[in-house]
């Protein structure tokens, strides 16, 4: 029985219960994610991080949330009121919706019903996630526009350009997965990985492209140009306060968890145990698989934190250049390769043909890169000689540094 058929048998009350569970998981994981991020970042920066409220500071983010909700709610006079209020609602509701098609466990027993912890299984589930996340970005863009202020507008514009360019790369990286799994449903992609290898191994380039573009998609460092606090104060949410700001905050973290969950589903085998640990999947009547699922999600979440701690923000044009000139062509070439390999395999060609094809591609790759190396000329123009500075500087090639003791007349002795 496929997952879609299994979920089709759910009575209405069970669907409601599962919706509540999914919602609760999103909210609680946001609270924990904020705490984890602050603690892990602190560790990476040799600080302690929040450790006062509750054991290990665990309730800190809850306290912060309550404080945030009780603050004064300000709507700027220049704001477009309706859109200003609707924007955080769009942003938040859409990232919750993305969770509906993520399978979190295998077949389990919930209140006496055979089911799986997944709200629904669409035949185009992965595309559905792309669709709702692209609606979610409207929240950010509209927030930027409706604030009636310059910095938010710039943040909103940046975010829309970012999404338009990085969603293409993300969509293209998914194509290889679809070709390999022969399906766009999340449950079936997990199934196909369970029968073969994880997609992270087989489709490694897709995996890399997806991970990069998912950071761009969620507006996180080093791609957080939409809310670059060094340049745009707070970016799109500069004018937001109180609960509306809290909603954006919630949306950001739910989004991170959602794309991490999607990456887990598509590339790391979803809720299935890593190879060799398959016996754990039967524990607790199948419920133990949720542990594997969240472990894998946390791997991706850790990557998010790690990136934020170690990389500076990209300059805007570098960011665009990377998206359009590196990620998209790379994923196009990779899709062509995967599609060809898949057809060769399905037509029943021998292994030698496959290996010859791959080797040929590698050789072409080497040839192209060596051409690039040769055409790259380093400009070795002589540096222009500047004026001699009138104060002491460390000696640089091309600048004559002043001899301090000669100028002051040596009266220091």
């Amino acid at each position, binding site marked *: 029985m496929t997952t879609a058929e299994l979920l089709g048998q759910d009575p209405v009350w069970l669907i409601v219960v599962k919706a509540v569970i999914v919602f609760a998981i999103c909210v609680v994981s946001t609270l924990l994610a904020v705490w984890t991020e602050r603690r892990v970042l602190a560790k990476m920066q040799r600080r302690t991080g929040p450790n006062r409220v509750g054991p290990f500071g665990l309730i800190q983010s809850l306290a912060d949330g309550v404080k945030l909700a009780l603050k004064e709610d300000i709507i700027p006079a220049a704001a477009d009121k309706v859109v200003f209020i609707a924007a955080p609602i769009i942003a938040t509701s859409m990232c919750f919706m993305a969770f509906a098609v993520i399978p979190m466990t295998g077949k389990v027993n919930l209140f006496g019903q055979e089911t799986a912890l997944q709200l629904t299984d*669409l035949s185009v589930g992965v595309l559905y996630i792309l*669709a709702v996340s692209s609606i979610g970005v*409207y929240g950010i863009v509209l927030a930027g*526009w409706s604030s009636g202020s310059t910095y938010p507008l710039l943040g909103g514009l940046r975010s829309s350009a970012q999404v338009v360019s990085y969603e293409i790369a993300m969509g293209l990286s998914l194509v290889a997965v679809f070709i390999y799994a022969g399906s766009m449903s999340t449950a079936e992609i997990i199934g196909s990985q369970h029968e073969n290898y994880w997609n992270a191994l087989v489709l490694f380039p897709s995996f890399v492209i997806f991970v990069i573009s998912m950071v761009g998609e969620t507006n996180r460092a080093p791609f957080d140009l939409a809310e670059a606090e060094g340049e745009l104060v707070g970016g799109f949410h500069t004018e937001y306060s109180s609960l509306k700001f809290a909603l954006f905050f919630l949306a950001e973290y739910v989004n991170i968890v959602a794309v991490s969950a999607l990456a887990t589903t598509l590339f790391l085998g979803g809720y299935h145990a890593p190879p060799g640990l398959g016996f754990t999947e039967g524990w607790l009547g199948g419920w133990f698989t949720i542990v594997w699922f969240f472990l894998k999600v946390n791997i991706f979440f850790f990557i998010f934190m790690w990136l934020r701690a170690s990389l500076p923000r990209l*300059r805007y044009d570098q960011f665009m250049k990377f998206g359009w000139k590196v990620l998209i062509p790379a994923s196009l070439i990779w899709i062509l390769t995967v599609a060809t390999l898949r057809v060769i395999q399905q037509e029943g060609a021998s292994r030698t043909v496959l290996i010859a094809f791959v080797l040929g591609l590698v050789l072409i790759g080497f040839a192209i890169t060596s051409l690039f190396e040769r055409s790259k000329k380093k400009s070795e123009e002589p540096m*222009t000689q500047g004026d001699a500075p009138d104060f002491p500087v460390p000696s640089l090639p091309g600048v004559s540094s002043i001899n301090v003791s000669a100028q002051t007349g040596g009266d220091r002795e």
Partner: protein
Amino acid sequence: MLEIATPETIMFWALAPLSVIAALGMLVVKKAVHSAILLAFVMVTLAIFFIAQGAVFLGVVQIVVYTGAVMMLFLFILMLVGVDSSDSLTETIKGLRWIAIAAALGFGGLMIALIARATLGRTAIGLEIANSDGNVEGIAMLLFSDYVLPFEVISALLITAALGAMVLAHHQRTNRRPSQREQAIARFRTGSLSDAAGLPGPGVYALHNAVDVPALLPDGTPAPTSISATLKARGDVIESAPFQLDVVDPTIKEEK
């Protein structure tokens, strides 16, 4: 006739009026951005109708494609028309209104003719047969066999449009823009080194700390480089004199 299930009927009567109102509102509202938002709403409701009728792939693709498209429209509005622009009814091209009405009527007629040709005199075969190989596979089969020529023609049209937009928006640089590295080197090699670490910030005083007051140099004179040239040209600069201390004691007491 095809059977229509009750939940679908309820959904239809809930969403259809909303989408019609939004579509009408799109034409009526003053601000261009509001119009774009309403357009996005209409697209999403249409997608929900598609999904409810069993065309899941079409519905989802409708959202993915049109949200991106409306996003581009949004950018065009912001960049070409202006952030807070409203509709103006003055015609910039002579006879624009009649051309627009003719185009709208022509397009409407074309749509009616196409839909009529696709539905009249034919019996619906039902979803089960249409989706017998799977919804996505069915669409792919049609798109890459019977409709491959229109598909390619449309793609050629789109590429031409994209190229045209690039040609219109492109301008040739007469000299190469210096890279960030070259700019950084030039800052240290040429001119005075005093600006190498960046220009001074605007004045920050107890009474005023906005960007429109120049900072004071150690000798008490205002630093002209600390404020933006735009503000200066606009005449929005405030004198820094009122924020100075009345008497500055320039003598330096040496610590013993």
